[in-house]
């Protein structure tokens, strides 16, 4: 049972390490975010396979989104999504008011410009999970005031 702190540290180090490498050598900033997102994608695919091995079939899209908000989020971040909204036309907004990966960074607007780096992996995670459940999606994140994010 790996501790949460370990994952948090690893994730932060991954973000830092990738950006460090980019500064020193080739590659612009955009590539780092893409790399993080694609890492999250692979992990998301694997995780969702393990989690849904024994669960029942999902009835529809909304059911899948609810699963992501409750069970998936709880297993990964030890809490549920605080708010799920949808326009019933394929757009879902998941709001987490105390996003685990951002709580240690700031409690407000300081360092806001760095927040996207820390969300890239998680966006990939969600996209990977959905992809293995049969949903093609685009996942973006928005942070207006840490540690809340959508």
């Amino acid at each position, binding site marked *: 049972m790996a501790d949460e*702190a370990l994952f948090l*540290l*690893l994730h932060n180090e991954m973000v830092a390490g990738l950006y460090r490498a980019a500064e020193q050598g080739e590659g612009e900033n955009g590539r780092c975010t893409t*790399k993080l997102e694609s*890492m999250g994608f*692979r*992990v998301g695919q694997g995780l969702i396979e393990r989690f849904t091995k024994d669960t029942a079939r999902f009835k529809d899209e909304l059911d899948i989104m609810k699963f992501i908000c409750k069970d998936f989020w709880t297993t*990964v971040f030890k809490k549920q999504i605080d708010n799920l909204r949808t326009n019933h036309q394929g757009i879902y907004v998941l709001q987490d008011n105390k996003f685990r990966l951002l709580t240690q960074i700031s409690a407000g607007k300081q360092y806001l410009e760095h927040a996207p780096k820390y969300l890239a*992996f998680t966006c990939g995670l969600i996209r990977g999970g959905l992809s293995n459940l049969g949903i093609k999606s685009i996942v973006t994140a928005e942070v207006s005031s840490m540690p809340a994010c959508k």
Partner: protein
Amino acid sequence: NSELFTLTYGALVTQLCKDYENDEDVNKQLDKMGYNIGVRLIEDFLARSNVGRCHDFRETADVISKIAFKMYLGITPSITNWSPGGDEFSLILENNPLVDFVELPDNHSSLIYSNLLCGVLRGALEMVQMAVDVKFVQDTLKGDSVTEIRMKFIRRIEDNLPAGEE
């Protein structure tokens, strides 16, 4: 959930293998990242476990295997192969959670997959004033029956006052 960590670590190693052409560079990068993690992890560890200062290397070995490994990876490696001077020992891991679901392809035979662990141990111990050398001597990914990490105490790090201060 340990799978999250295992899978994330796997994705990281894969990405590093793509970025760096040779295994040696990946090993170095893993070690460096592990070091950075280790220097922070030690604080988390000390805060949670409340262990006091270790009096000698043997105590350190016990704390690492029975408390730290158990806390973070859920395993308790055994300690063996003490050198006669008491400054080197081996941690034997029957199973390494980092390598669940992992197979090393043939073209990466010199990759030390779990090298992050070496960096973590090195970084963490440096923060408690111990300079150590950590390396893998056996690895289940390479066909050995167990994973063995060799830890060698080099010296105690004295707190150095900046030049000019006394």
